[in-house]
């Protein structure tokens, strides 16, 4: 039975919270960085970048360092960070304390998605408890060093989950990505060296500090150590967040843990890592394991672990229409190809979904997707192009069946 008060400090303490952070604060920061590097922990925000390695990119001589916690979880199909914020916010705060000590940061910013109401209340209350208990504040955990936490609420923009747009948003600017280089580890928040880590990434730190890198590596695979929170949604009997060890078969996650496709229907397609990752066919989905390398081998990505399950009744054109609409709505509008291309793509998909599309439109759709990839400031355009390309190539027959000129040619140019 889940403890309804799991978010409270007293429950968290009873479960062992803040033991690891106390241990970490007694160590040299470099030692913590080494632990995290050795653990092989990879970022859970989507890109899977090695966390310890990212920390080592900070310049040696720096007058200030910021940690930004990315809690802007907005990727369609992903809702794992929300769970941590709601059910175990102290696990996150403990991770923040460890990370701050490791990178010598005195002030962390937590950027939380604007639509998160309960998660916001919970993390705010938890931070207040942590301050009251002296775990945060001028003498964090009795270490003699300050660790402050500022919680910043977003205002409903998917793009603010992109790390540099997140920095702009905290600074009070328009949430749009910055050019890289310079990378945030050199020039980040308020122009200072900054590390941006995902909520789930930080939530892994207490275990690593407490049990050591070897214990962490004992779970999961060589290239994807540790466990992973998988958000499972869509046509599934038991939607929810599942913690699985990296490397378990996807089939097991879908069929056993999550109770299988709803109503005993057949699986048609599965998006493995949030809406921007290429869709997998049922065969591909059942052949992969839940780890970075295995999903990557199919040309898709484990991304943020957002599994969207689609059964045999799904109209794939309809599904892409929903996704394309989302991306058109969320493009920040900064770069020409993405700003113009996202809306154009959404229009064409809509046209095809409504049965008014032509063969020419389908060709245009594919060429536009190819045109927007790789020539923008951030990877949003790739995130839009990949689902388009994968939907159209893997389910081409469905798209062609929607075309107005599939039998008779009545197409206007």
């Amino acid at each position, binding site marked *: 039975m889940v403890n309804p008060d799991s978010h409270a400090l007293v429950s968290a303490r009873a479960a062992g919270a803040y033991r690891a952070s106390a241990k970490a604060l007694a160590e040299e920061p470099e030692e913590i960085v080494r632990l995290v590097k050795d653990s092989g922990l990879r970022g859970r925000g989507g890109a899977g970048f090695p966390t310890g390695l990212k920390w080592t990119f900070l310049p040696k001589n720096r007058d200030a360092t910021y940690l930004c916690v990315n809690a802007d979880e907005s990727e369609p199909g992903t809702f794992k960070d929300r769970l941590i914020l709601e059910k175990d916010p102290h696990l996150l705060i403990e991770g923040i304390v460890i990370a701050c000590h490791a990178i010598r940061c005195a002030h962390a910013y937590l950027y939380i998605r604007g639509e998160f109401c309960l998660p916001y209340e919970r993390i705010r209350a938890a931070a207040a408890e942590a301050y009251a208990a002296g775990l945060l504040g001028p003498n964090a955990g009795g270490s003699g060093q300050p660790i402050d936490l500022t919680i910043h609420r977003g205002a409903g923009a998917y793009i603010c989950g992109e790390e540099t747009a997140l920095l702009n948003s905290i600074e009070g600017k328009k949430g749009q990505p910055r050019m890289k280089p310079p990378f945030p580890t050199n020039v980040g928040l308020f122009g200072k060296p900054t590390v941006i880590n995902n909520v789930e990434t930080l939530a892994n730190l207490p275990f690593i500090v407490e049990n050591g890198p070897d214990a962490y590596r004992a779970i999961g695979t060589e290239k994807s150590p540790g466990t992973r929170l998988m958000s499972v949604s869509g046509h599934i009997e038991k939607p929810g967040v599942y913690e699985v060890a990296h490397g378990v078969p996807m089939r097991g996650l879908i069929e056993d843990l999550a109770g299988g496709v709803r109503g005993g229907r057949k699986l048609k397609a599965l998006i493995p890592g949030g809406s921007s990752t290429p869709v997998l066919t049922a065969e591909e989905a059942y052949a992969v394991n839940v780890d970075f390398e295995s999903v990557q081998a199919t040309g898709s990505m484990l991304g943020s672990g957002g599994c969207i399950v689609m059964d045999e009744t799904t109209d794939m054109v309809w599904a892409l229409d929903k996704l394309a609409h989302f991306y058109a709505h969320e493009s920040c*509008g900064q770069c*020409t190809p993405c700003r113009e291309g996202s809306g154009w793509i959404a229009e064409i998909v809509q046209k095809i979904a409504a049965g008014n599309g032509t063969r020419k439109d389908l060709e245009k759709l594919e060429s536009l997707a190819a045109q927007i990839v790789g*020539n923008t400031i951030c990877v949003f355009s790739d995130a839009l192009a990949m689902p388009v390309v994968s939907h159209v190539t893997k389910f081409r027959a469905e798209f062609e069946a929607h075309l107005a000129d599939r039998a008779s040619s009545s197409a206007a140019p």
Partner: protein
Amino acid sequence: MAKFTLNGVEREVPDGINLIEAALLFGVRIPHYCYHPGLSPEGNCRMCAVEIEGIPKLQTACTTLVADGMVVHTESEKVIRERTEVMEFLLRNHPIDCPICDQAGECGLQKYYMEHGLHDSRVAVEEKILKRKRVDLGPLVVLDSERCILCSRCVRFCDEIAGVRELVLANRGGRSEITTFPGRTLENPYSGNVIDICPVGALTSKDFRFKVRVWFLKTAGSICPGCERGCNIYIEQYQNEVQRIRPRANLDVNRWWICDDGRLDYKWINRDRLLRAEGEAGAHSPERADEEAARILREAGSVLLVASPRSSNENLFALKRFRDAALPRAALVGGSFRKPWEGDRILKRPDRNPNRKGMEILGLSGDLEGALRKAPDCVLVVENDLLGDRPDLADLLRGKKLIALASNRDATAEKAALRIPVCTYAETEGSWTNFEGRTQAFHPVLKAVGESRPVFRVLEGIARALGASLEWSDFGALREETFQAAPALGSLSPSPGGGAHAL
């Protein structure tokens, strides 16, 4: 210095410049919209993407600093395809406005479509997104949102150069629009510059729109007469009337900008011009006017010649020579009663005369008011609206013979017993020396209006009528003599351009 390879040729360039500027040093123009050498690079239009060996993705040249050993291709197949694709995206929602758009003929979209686009449209006109047209942003500027390519140059200009937060990019994605912040207008004293730097027809000038097609304009490089900064400008005319003024880049003086007052400081050139010499007995031919002036000067017991800090160095020098050759007993004092305005830290200087420094160097400054109070019988005023600037002087000059060499029917000319038309700075060669002592030349763009002549030619004529010899074969001879006589004027300053400024 950095050695890099540009399209197969090894080149050496100064450190720390971006690839657009580096390529330009060798005549290689990399197309761009959002980049402007006077603003921070943004990298959003994607037009300047180039291929750098060893980097899989194309890189924006505007945000990439040249580095030792870099191998850059600006014309590879990949780059050319990318440009065409970006052009297609930029034109996707662009209205078919060219026939009614003021930017036509100097439009970045037209230019690059011809150079890098030439694709067939894949958009039906009715599919284009409609946005606001004719948005009144402020006193000088109108926005047509449909034409905007969202390069954000104007936003960055306001933030970085004018130092005000007036413009912002609102909304997201395809609904993005330039707009003013709620309750604000685009009214900073430099707002007109956003018209020039807008690469398309989105920001147009209320003052210039619909006046004339730009391909009919004739242009000359000139200097702004508005204050002692001496900003470099282009004057553009059609049918011998000034139509607009634009800044001319000069990194040492005004960079790429001019203030709004300077931009609008031309209407007087087209208006209320004195076309013929007029005396108390009616109009005169130029020759008669010179004789009439000579007569008045001869009959006067005491004469004061008034020089102006708005005259060119050459005309001031000619006035000095006129006094020495024809009227050695006359007093000669220069000055202006033009009210100073508030200067700022950007370009505007308090003193609103373009050549006070030159006048000082030529030794013509003095106590003008004191000289007028000495009550000379006759005052000859050259290019100086004393009464317009100080109406109370009318009492002082009552009963004096006033001769005005003036381009316009200003208050002084109207009160004069004899007014002789002279050319404005837009119709003649000349030079002004700015507050830093930088002497800059301006060039004529208009033909002389009516029977107006250059000041020095009128002075020659009056001297002739007075029986003195004062003669320059052409303007060049006068200029040479002026600069020899006053070495402190230095030599004419060149106008260093302003970097990649293709649009």
